C-alpha cells in the first residue's frame, strides 16, 4: 500500500469510529437532558410524569417541615406552588424565602419527590433557574393586569 492510500484508510477508519462514538454520545445525551420547569408550568401539567426534571423558585415561608432527615417544603414562584418531599441533608444555603432548585420526579399524588436539592456557593446568589421562574410568574401577572385595564 502506498502511504497515501494507507493514510486514507486510517482516515476512513477514524471517521467510522467517530460516527459510532457520535451516535452513542448523542443517544446518551438525549436520555440525560434534564429540563427545567417553573411551578406555574408544573401546575399547568407541562412537566413530564415519570421523568426527572428540575423545578425551582423560592422556598415558601413557613412551609418547611422536618422529621429528622425527612424534609417537606414548598417551592413557589408567587403564583403557583409545588409540594416537595426530600430525604437527606439540605445544603448550607437552604432557607425559607431563598431561591432553590430541586431535581427529581413528580409523583402521581402531585408531590415532587426530590433526589437532589442543589447546593449553591454564595449567599447572595439566586439560582438563575429560580430567578427565571419568579420572572416568568411576574411577567404573566403583569400581562393579566394589563388585560383587565382598558
Amino acid at each position, binding site marked *: 500500500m502506498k502511504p497515501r492510500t494507507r493514510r486514507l484508510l486510517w482516515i476512513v477508519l477514524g471517521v467510522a469510529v467517530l460516527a459510532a462514538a457520535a451516535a452513542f454520545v448523542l443517544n446518551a445525551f438525549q436520555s440525560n437532558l434534564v429540563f427545567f420547569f417553573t411551578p406555574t408550568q408544573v401546575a399547568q401539567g407541562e412537566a413530564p410524569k415519570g421523568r426527572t426534571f*428540575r423545578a425551582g423558585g423560592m422556598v415558601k415561608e413557613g412551609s418547611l417541615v422536618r422529621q429528622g432527615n425527612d424534609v417537606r417544603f414548598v417551592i413557589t414562584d408567587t403564583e403557583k406552588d409545588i409540594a416537595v418531599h426530600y430525604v437527606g441533608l439540605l445544603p448550607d444555603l437552604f432557607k425559607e424565602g431563598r431561591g432553590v432548585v430541586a431535581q427529581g420526579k413528580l409523583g402521581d399524588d402531585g408531590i415532587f419527590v426530590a433526589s437532589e436539592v442543589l447546593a449553591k*456557593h454564595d449567599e447572595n446568589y439566586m439560582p438563575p433557574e429560580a430567578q427565571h421562574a419568579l420572572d416568568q410568574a411576574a411577567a404573566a401577572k403583569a400581562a393579566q393586569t394589563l388585560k383587565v385595564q382598558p
Partner: protein
Amino acid sequence: MTAELGHFALIVGMVVALLQGVLPLWGTFSRAGATRQALMALARPAAYLQCALVTLSFAALATAFLSNDFSVAYVAQHSNSMLPKPYQFAAVWGGHEGSLLLWVLLLSVWTLAVGLFSRSLPLEMVARVIGVMGLVSVGFLLFILTTSNPFERLLPAASDGRDLNPLLQDPGLVIHPPMLYMGYVGMAVAFAFAVAALLGGRLDAAWARWSRPWTVIAWMFLTFGIGLGSWWAYYELGWGGWWFWDPVENASLMPWLVATALIHSLMVTEKRGGFKAWTVLLAIAAFSLSLLGTFLVRSGVLTSVHAFASDPKRGVFILIFLAVVVGTSLTLFAWRAPRATLGGSFAWISRESFLLANSVLLVVATAAVLLGTIYPLIIDALNLGKLSVGPPYFNAVFVPLLVPVLFLMVPGSVARWREAHMSEVLHKLRWPGALALVIAGGALAWGGSHSVGTFLGVALGSWVALGTAQLVIERLRKPGRIGASFWGQHVAHFGMAVVVLGITGVGSYQVERDVRMRVDDQVTIAPYTFILRRFDEVPGPNYKAVRADVEVQRDGRFVEVLQPEKRRYFSSAMPMTEAAIDSGWLRDLYVSLGEPLDDARTEWSMRVYYKPFVPWLWAGVLLMVLGGLLAAADRRYRR
C-alpha cells in the same frame, strides 16, 4: 499611589507587549539584512521588559491587598482587615480582575522562560514564538484595561472590605488557581510553537523537539491544578465528592485531555516525523480550549464559586478574542499544513497506530464533554428553554471512551515503532494481562461488589500498573544509562493506573451515612465506630465555629478524634462546613456537620462517610506530576 503605579505599569506593559508581538514577527517577514536581525533580536528584551512591568503591576495590587487599601474597589470587594495575611495575598486572585492579572503575569513569566531557555534555537524561531506570545498577551492586557481594571478607585473609600468568599479561605485556594493557570497559559507556549512552525513553514522533528518539554511542563501544571481543585472540592465543600462534572471542572478537563493527546502526538512527530498536521491541530485546540475555559469560568455565563464577572461586555470580549485566535490559526493551518510532508509509514499494528487511536479517542471524549458543557448555555442563549446535562450523561459517555484508552496504553508502550507483530505483543503482555484479570476477580470476590464497573476498573488499573512494571523491570535488566524521559513516561502511566484504581475503589466500596446525632450517639460503619462526644464553640480570626468531637474506634480500640466544624463568618450570613478527614493508605474517614435539627442545637444531622482508596486519587495525580517533571528534565532537551 501604589494602585496608580500598578495601573500605569500595566498600560506601559501593554505597549511593550504590542512591540513584542509586532516587531519581531515583522522582522521574520522582512528581507535578510541588518534590520531583520535587529528586529528579531528585539523579541527577548521586549519579553523581559513586559514581564518586569506586569510583575510590577501585580506587586502593586498585592501591596494594596496587604496594606488593606480599601480605596481600591477590587480590594474592598475581596478582602477584609481581619482576613489572615496569607489569604489577603491569595485574595489578589480571588476575583475576576485579579485572576486575569495573574493570567497575564504567568503568561509573561512563561515568555521570560522561553526567552531564557531557548539559546540553542534559531533566532527566527525564537522571534516567532515570543512574537505570538506577545500578541496573546496584548489581547489579555487589552481585556483587563478596557473591561476589568483591578486598580479602579472607590470614592469614598470603604471603611473595611467585604471579605473573601469563605469557601475560598483555604490553603487549597492559595495554590490551586496559579497551578491551573500555569497549565492553561502553558498551552499558549505549545500554541505559539505550532503557529511559529506554520509561519516558518517548517513542521519538522526539530520543531517537535523544541516544543515537547514546554508542552509537558504545561501538562504537568494542568494535571496538578486539576488534582488540587478536586482535592479542594472534596474536603472543602463538605459532602465528600471529588468530581461533579461541573462546567467549571469540565473547562479544565477538556484542555487536559487534548494536552495529553498532544504530548503523545508530539513524540511521534519528533521520533518518526509523523502526525505533523494532527499535532499542530491538537496544539491549536489545547490553547483554544484553555481560552474557552477562561471564557466559561470568567465571563459569568456560568454561576458558580469560580464565576465572578457578570458584565456582558467581558464575555463578548473573550468570545471575540477566542474567535480571532481560532480563526487566524486555522486559516494559517489551512494555508500552510498541506506543505507538510508525510512521516514514515507505519503498519496497522505499531506504536504509531496505538498512539493515533488513543489520540482520536481522547479528542472524541473531549468533544463529548464539550457538548454536554456548552449545549445548555447555547439553548439558554437562544431562549429555547432551560435545561441541564447531569453527571449521568458524562459518566455514560466518558467511561466507555476511556476504557479503550486505558487498555491501549500498555500495548502502545510495548509495541515497536513502524511495525509490530501481534503475537509478540501478546506474548510479552501475557503475565500482566492474566494477573490483572485475577486481581479484578479477587476484588469482586473479596470486596462484595458485583458490578461490571468494579471488575473493569480494577482490571484496567492493574493492567496498566503491571504492564508498566514489566516494562520497567525489563529495561532495568538491560545495560546502559536510563534516560529521565523513560522514568517520566512510566511514572506518569503508573500514576494514571493508581488514579483509576482509586476511582474504582471509592466508587465501588464507599459507605455514606447521613445520620442525626446527639452527644454520645454512635454510628458504626464496620469496622469503625463513630461516637459523638461533645460540641464546643470555637472562635476563629474572622469567624466563630461550632466544633464537634467525634471519637473513632476500630474494634473497640481508640483510633482518633475527628473535629468537623460549622463556621459562621462575620462578614457573611453564610454558614460554612469544614469536614474532618482522617486519611490512611487505603481509606479516608470523613465526617462533616449538616445542620442543627432543634433550636437548642443539641441534635445535628451529620455525614459520616467511609471512603476507601480516595488517597490513591491524589497519590496518582502526584505521580503523574512527577512523571511530567522527569520527562521534561530529560538531558536531550538541554542541548
